[in-house]
């Protein structure tokens, strides 16, 4: 079992803690009462009781721990952080305050701080299972943040912080009381399994799960009557299900619409119709480099309107549609002011309502 070990070290600090724990054991009733109040949602009452108790015994770790939990439950995150931080300072040997500190930091998306706190919790007690699970979640979150920064993906759509497990009680007074004969109050404080209060942390899930990922194939399949029962296949087929003759007409229509959108884009460009040209790009279009949308638009406007004549012709246009996303690949023959450039181009489109809009533009294959 995971136990909060208090090894018999002869350090003063340890003795001091042991002493306070022994006292705590004698006040198991008070802890039980407070816990009961917290469980039934009477947070204000619980807090009053805790403060009363702490008035007499300001150092008591168990009661201070409960206070932190109450503050957190009442939405006073900053106060809760302060309470748990002070606990880690006064009792650096206890892993639980670190764990809860990490939970609070993670809730504020401060994953670096959460990580440090959890690593401290584990250093304090290497077999502390909750901290390990929590730390796993935090590592996952940090890794995906790092990947997003590496790939310059919009971190804005991955803002769901992982749900970490908060330890509700430093020791389990109710359980202890029930199991322990009253005659043994001097026994070392029991067990303190944090297990009791440990909801399984729910994994945060892959970061960009909101992205227009491969769902599409299934989505179209389900919106199309019986004829396409290939649900399991869609799971294994990669994103770009090629548009073949067997695909239901809804998809072919989609492909036609997307193709039309690409042609309209090229036409607007050729006609130097900047407004329509820019309107071909969706809200979520990522300008190249790290330009802002507005500076990109300004640059495009300038580039296009400064040319006396522009011709954009598309060859070998191939559009692949899957659900609400489409990819158009073609050779682009661009001519303007005596310059002629022929290049491969790929446009990624997304369907918003009944409009196909460009979300990504890349040259090369």
């Amino acid at each position, binding site marked *: 079992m995971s136990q909060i070990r208090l090894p018999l070290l002869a350090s003063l600090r340890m003795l001091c803690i042991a002493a306070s724990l022994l006292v705590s054991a004698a006040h198991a009733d008070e802890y039980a009462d407070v816990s009961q109040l917290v469980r039934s949602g009477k947070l204000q009452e619980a807090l009053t009781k805790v403060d009363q108790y702490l008035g007499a015994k300001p150092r008591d770790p168990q009661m201070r721990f409960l206070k932190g939990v109450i503050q957190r439950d009442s939405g006073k995150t900053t106060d809760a952080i302060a309470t748990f931080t002070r606990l880690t300072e006064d009792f650096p040997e206890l892993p639980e305050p670190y764990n809860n500190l990490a939970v609070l930091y993670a809730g504020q998306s401060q994953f670096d701080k959460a990580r440090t706190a959890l690593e401290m919790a584990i250093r304090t007690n290497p077999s502390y299972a909750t901290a390990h699970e929590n730390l796993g979640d935090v*590592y996952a979150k940090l890794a995906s943040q790092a*990947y997003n*920064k*590496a790939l*310059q993906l919009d971190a804005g759509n991955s803002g769901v912080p992982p749900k970490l497990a908060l330890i509700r009680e430093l020791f389990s007074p109710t359980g202890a009381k029930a199991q322990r004969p009253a005659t043994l109050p001097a026994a070392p404080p029991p067990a303190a399994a944090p297990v009791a209060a440990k909801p399984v942390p729910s994994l945060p899930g892959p970061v*960009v799960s909101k992205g227009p990922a491969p769902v599409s194939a299934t989505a179209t399949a389900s919106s199309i009557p019986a004829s396409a029962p290939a649900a399991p296949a869609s799971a294994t087929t990669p994103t770009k299900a090629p548009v073949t003759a067997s695909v239901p007409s809804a998809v072919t229509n989609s492909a036609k619409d997307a193709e039309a959108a690409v042609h309209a884009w090229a036409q607007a460009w050729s006609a130097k119709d900047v407004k329509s040209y820019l309107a071909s790009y969706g809200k979520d279009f990522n300008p190249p480099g790290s330009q802002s949308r507005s500076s990109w638009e300004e640059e495009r406007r300038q580039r296009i309107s400064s040319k006396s004549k522009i011709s954009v012709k598309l060859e070998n246009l191939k559009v692949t549609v899957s659900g609400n996303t489409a990819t158009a690949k073609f050779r682009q023959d661009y001519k303007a002011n005596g310059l002629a450039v022929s290049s491969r181009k790929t446009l990624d489109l997304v369907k918003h309502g009944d409009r196909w809009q460009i979300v990504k533009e890349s040259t090369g294959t």
Partner: protein
Amino acid sequence: MKFGWWTADPRRAAVSALLLVLAWGSNSNAFSATNKRAAKDKTQRQVAPVVNDTDGVAEARLIEVYKLIGQANNREALKKADLLVADFPSFQLAQLVHGDLLAAQIRPIKAFGDVPDDVARTASGALAELREESHRRVRALRERPLKGTVPSQFLALSQKSKHAIAVDASRSRLYLFENGASGMNLVADYYISVGKAGTAKTAEGDQRTPLGVYYITSNLDPKSLKDFYGSGALPISYPNILDSKRGKTGSGIWLHGTPPAQFSRPPQATDGCVVLANPDLQRIIRTVEVKTTPVVIATHLNWVAPQSTRAESKPFEDALNGWRNAKTSGNLQQVLTYYTPDFNSNGKNLAQWTPNLKTELDQTQGRTIQLKDLSYLRWTDATDTMVVTFGEVADGTRVGWTKRQYWIRQENQWKIFFEGVI
């Protein structure tokens, strides 16, 4: 009851997988130059806590992380990566490695940049670019030029050029030289990005970086530049005389920095410029001189010992001396044999330019012509050319011209197709 978490620790497996993937980051003393730099930076760091401005540091620290991973020391690697991304949050490659090291705490890492599948799909291009950037950085650091060698283009570089720059596009690397009494000495080299469509620029808008021998023409005030250009810009002399002769178009090829959100850019990312990380560019801006610093841009640099080129450059030196002697003799017809029929000097053809030549000969009146501070850089592609710079002074006179000539080898004869005063 015993806890099983340690033995079942997924991190164990993860470490070895990551090791495999990054094994190329591990071996030998290939990084010794970088290490030295890193070590030096550490000592500097104690003095000045701001390290972000020192050139080459970010890469040296990244390589340190690679080496730790190579030594299976993931714990230390993660610590160093934590600090690296804290100091350089927009260094995407560092973020990617940091992501791998964090992910390795909870799952096996199967590839360098082992991002979740959905992310890999959304950002496959960016991921491939970062892997390529990593590959090129490591390769350039592993395959170092031999000490004492220089790129083969630099046949002679006078003391007027205190510095020189050479770019190897295939390695995504810029080499910075100091030119002293003992010749050219490599002092630093940096990762760079070139055009989206690669090199060999021919036309405006083709998103290619030019290849050839150029000079830095100016140093633009960073305050006048958009964020996009980073900490400054050094325009180079594209199109040069040879480029113009070949009808190449375009302009505004600069060495410049990176925008705030991107510490470095992918190997092929620019509209034709050569882009460096801001601290690296700043070091170059602080170091080099405008006008006299040559910038050679090649697909592959060929490194040679300076003495080894003597024999090869003899025919050219003979031709140059022949031209000098002809000028000393004052014989116009003899001098004219050194010029190509399609000679052009800033718009004047040979017939139009001959009077200028005659005036010069009248002025020197048979006095011996001296060529001072002679530089010649060879550029060989479909043709074999020489970019020559010197001070032309007649004996007994105090001043002369600083001239630039372009020579071309035709049927084993070196001839001048451009001459101008700079």
